[in-house]
């Protein structure tokens, strides 16, 4: 087994909540994320995401878009932080420059679209947290 597969075995049981308002991104990135994690729940906006998080409460990882109707990704992340300070939150941004801005809210800010390289970084961080 190669290194990446070993890494994936270690983190695949983590439960992921993925939030994005664009259908195409939701489908594309959703399918992509399911290659790494066994459980990926997908929501269409911040309010939906927060409600899902409240209902299930057992998510380990939250990956979210910023700009969304009803409740945006940053406000949702702040709420989720209040409920579960240990949640690992990844914020996806469409623009450059927001990288350092949200450091205290998210564990990581990545530029859209999510890439395989990004996933390696995320997986490594998740693994070192679990150790």
């Amino acid at each position: 087994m190669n290194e990446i597969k070993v890494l994936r075995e270690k983190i695949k049981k983590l439960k992921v909540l993925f939030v994005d308002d664009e259908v195409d991104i939701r489908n594309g990135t959703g399918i992509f994320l399911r290659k790494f994690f066994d459980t990926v729940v997908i929501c269409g906006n911040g309010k939906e995401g927060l409600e899902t998080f409240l209902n299930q409460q057992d998510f380990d990882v939250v990956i979210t878009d910023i700009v969304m109707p009803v409740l945006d990704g940053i406000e949702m992340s702040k709420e989720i932080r209040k409920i579960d300070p240990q949640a690992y939150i990844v914020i996806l941004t469409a623009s450059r420059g927001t990288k350092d801005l949200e450091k205290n809210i998210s564990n990581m800010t990545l530029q859209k679209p999510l890439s395989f390289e990004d996933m390696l970084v995320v997986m490594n961080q998740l693994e070192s947290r679990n150790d």
Partner: protein
Amino acid sequence: MIYDKDLVSESSQQYNQTLTSNRNITESSLRMRAMAYLAQAKANLLMETIFEVENSRKSIQDELTYKDEMLFIQSRHAAMGEMISMIAHQWRQPISSISMGANSILADIELDMMSEDNLRENANEIIKQTQELSQTIDDFRGFFQPDKMKQKVFVKDVIQDTLQIINSSLVSSEIEVRVEHQKENEIETYARELMQVLINLLNNAKDALVQNRASGRKILISQKRLDDRVILEVCDNGGGIDEEILHTIFEPYFTTKSDKNGTGLGLHMSKTIVQRHLLGSIAAYNTKEGACFKVSLPLIGAEREDAR
């Protein structure tokens, strides 16, 4: 020689008179000359002034044409910037899909999950999205070609072509666009210039909505026939325009936008295009919810009737 004293005195008086009169003549001629000089000087001065006025009028005119030119250049640059941002919006989605397709293939390889079906699906998705990118280029290239002559177009087609270019940027600002077509109105016009005006009005509506409204952002584009004209309206629910500035919005360099995008030229150019090139009129008014821009253009039928 006998001097008649009287005579002498008379003659001397005469002489004196002559002298006096001569002096008078000299004086008056001098005075006249002086006056003539003065008049000449005044005339010269006047000529100079006229010349100066003429000159300064000319230079004002020169400056105006220069300013007009600068205005056009600046507005073209602003339009260019808007175009680039519209292309960026249009491309974001396909680029993201292409990237996702390639990353999926990579993940499949590394995680030993490769299957022919997945590969084919990803490759097809990438091909489909590259066609989207090409389509955008074609749309914009078409827009940039100048109108050589007026052409007959349906107003609804111009609206559709405009939305093709700008819709992504409206959608990404969470704006719902509704189009109302009342009739098959046909006009003879410079279609791309009309598109430029529409794009400008839509961008303004978008900026107002993003600035003033968190949700439920709406734009309504409508067209209806009124006698021998077609009335094209772009209305938003973005709060409207301050009544105090409503009469100044078409003036050059007037802007309420604080960011770099606000050159204050968009509406001025739109008015110039509509009035001078499209032979129509443009006006703005407020509704309960927001602002409306009304463009009135001559219908084809109307021109034919005039010709008869």
